[in-house]
């Protein structure tokens, strides 16, 4: 199964990453019973399995039970939630801050995959229902970099 089908298919079907949402606006993934910001109750939600790399590391001295090199990234999901997940070692050369990634789950562990330009365009057209949010996300990622000091 290709990464494009997995990531894009998930988003198109509206399935994705289990999360929780608080009345105060805070969203966390994975879900938490209490809001980490205000302590209020949280309701279960699902987020699209797509985001952009906020930052990452390739861990060369991983803890017992993990193989080196171990890519770990903090991904900003659509809607602004930060999510820690694993990468695929063979893609490490393609990791960049701001890079769009698709996220998939294998045995309860989430992995991000970088997407080529073609995959991102294909995904964009398949996700017509969420067009507005997607356009905003693309604009944000396009304009954020040049504005930085």
């Amino acid at each position, binding site marked *: 199964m290709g990464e494009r089908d997995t990531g894009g298919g998930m988003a198109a079907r509206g399935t994705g990453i289990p999360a929780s949402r608080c009345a105060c606006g805070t969203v966390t993934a994975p879900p938490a019973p209490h809001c980490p910001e205000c302590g209020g109750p949280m309701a279960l939600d699902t987020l699209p399995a797509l985001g952009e790399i906020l*930052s*990452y*590391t390739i*861990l*060369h*001295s991983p803890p*017992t039970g993990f193989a080196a090199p*171990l890519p770990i990234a903090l991904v900003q999901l659509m809607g602004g*939630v930060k999510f820690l997940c694993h990468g695929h070692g063979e893609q490490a050369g393609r990791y960049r*801050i701001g890079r769009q990634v698709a996220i998939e789950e294998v045995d309860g562990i989430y992995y991000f995959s970088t997407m080529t330009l073609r995959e991102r365009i294909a995904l964009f057209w398949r996700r017509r229902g969420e067009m507005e949010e997607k356009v905003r996300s693309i604009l944000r990622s396009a304009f954020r970099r040049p504005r930085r000091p």
Partner: protein
Amino acid sequence: MPAIYVAGVGCTRFGRLEASLLALLAEAAQQALHDAGVEEVDLIVVGAMNPEEFTGDGTLAPLFASFLGKAHTPAFRVETGTSSGAGAFAAACAAIAAGFARTALVVAGEKMTGLATPRVAEILSRMIDPTERRYGATMPALAAIVTRAYARAHHLDAKDLAMIPVKNHRNGARNPLAHFQAEITVEDVLGSRLIADPLRLYEVCPISDGAAAAVLTAERRPVRVAGIGQGSDHVALRHRRSLTSFRATQEAARRAYAMAGVGPRAVQVAEVHDAFTPFELINMEDLGLAEAGKAVRALVKGETSLEGRLPVNPSGGLKARGHPVAASGLAQIVEIVWQLRGEAGGRQVREPRVGLAQSIGGLSSANWVTILARD
């Protein structure tokens, strides 16, 4: 807060040591008591992060009090992760301010080298959010994620960042208590192996043994505790508002400055938590010692070297002095006291009157800022 003074300080050599945890704590404590000219205290506060697992010692405070021949002196332990030494110092100040004690002995230490490195890393990783730990996140891994975000936001390259351990090793070479007393070059840093990309071996503090101590009193002495503040934040990195600054330091600093009645401009020497050396720049910015993204300029211009306008980590920092975790927060305070008293030997900075120590607990979830002044 009523006036509280540092009457005496002590610190063991840091490094891979033969002595037991209790012996290290006692060595630092006896130095501090002797320095203060005090034999009896009303209270003993012990800072230790995880003696249960590092050395198998439990109920450390009464165990240590008994070892020191003070079994009947009230004693308790404070733990705020890697900042436990600074937390113990604050607790002792609070006890004196509240009238529970008039003179207190604070002692903090850790004995870490008795275990193999992977086991030490595993114990330290308990400070990480369980979900993030499940993904193999270690302290260096999360620090690397922060470092990459910070470097990207402020256009820093590896050579800029490599100047921090070079400066701190240069200072450590002038500190007879430091774990590492040899100077290194930018090439050494950039040639060392990657631990967690982009962090290299020479940008990560060593695993060390050691202890530090201070005697606090309500009676007038030359060095005064001017301000103390704590700041806390989510343990989970994914819940943090910013990846390029630490809110826990910012809030600790705000409280400490407010108590001291001074601002960052008054600070003439600082010891900051450089367990991962790029954090030195983030810490300076969080403390208001530099504007966001500008700390690197002070570093490159030499302003933070021993001879500069604002020497940072004259002791060598956690990188070169070493990091016996709980000891570090108190060892920073001891260094500031020596600097204020003009007793820092070959690494003495020019007659400071106000100094600051900043200690990070976990990955900045329980941070302390302590400001000391020479009246």
